């Protein structure tokens, strides 16, 4: 997948939410190696989800 495709696939959000199988996680992790900017995406997504979890 290209950068835009992985960003729009919804897989990063599922990855950060802990809802991907081992195989799917490996796919995301391969893309992180290919496009290091995805680590920054995951920080933003992770922080947003953490703020949400802290509401409850």
């Amino acid at each position, binding site marked *: 997948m290209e950068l835009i495709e992985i960003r729009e696939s919804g897989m990063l959000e599922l990855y950060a939410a802990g809802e991907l199988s081992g195989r799917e996680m490996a796919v995301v992790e391969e893309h*992180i190696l290919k496009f290091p900017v995805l680590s920054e995406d995951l920080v933003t997504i*992770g922080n947003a989800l953490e*703020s949400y979890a802290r*509401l*409850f």
Partner: protein
Amino acid sequence: LEVKEVINLLQCKNQKGLQHLMDNYSAALNGVIIRIVGSQLVAEEILQNTFLKVWNNIDSYDNTKGTLYTWMHRIARNAALDKARTKGFNMHEKTVGLDDSVYKTGTETDLANMDIQKLLGSLDEKYKIVLDHIYLLGYSQSETAEKLCIPLGTVKTRLRYAVNELKELVKNDKKLFMGLFAVLILLSIALWN
């Protein structure tokens, strides 16, 4: 403490790091665990095991793959789901709902969170419900699709939309906080003069 410092403490096997995790992350992680296992007693055990795992495996945490919280959340969620499955109960019937009984009391909720909570009202229920099922209730993508009677692809797009909205809320919330802070500083300068 900055997250980086906490990670350093944990890597050096300094108990202060563990204490910091327990003080700062217990409530959020417990909220997720208890919704999956439906029992405070079981949730406490899983929470302790989660911290123990984090303590023992901190060297395998890789910050290119997400935040420390993301990693801890994944450990807690998986442990809770494993426990729910081994107990053989229908976990989604026994989970604690998203009702007020498990919401934090006002004193535990900080000001920033209250602002986000207010703003969250603007997030359409159809997006929020997907986020809640996957992120807080431990449902898989396919379980969420089945429960909400929507296609799997829609689960993905709605989750993504909900997270994007959340990112905006967090960003605006920080701006609001910085704005208030600036006003306070200006006021103090004005008063001082």
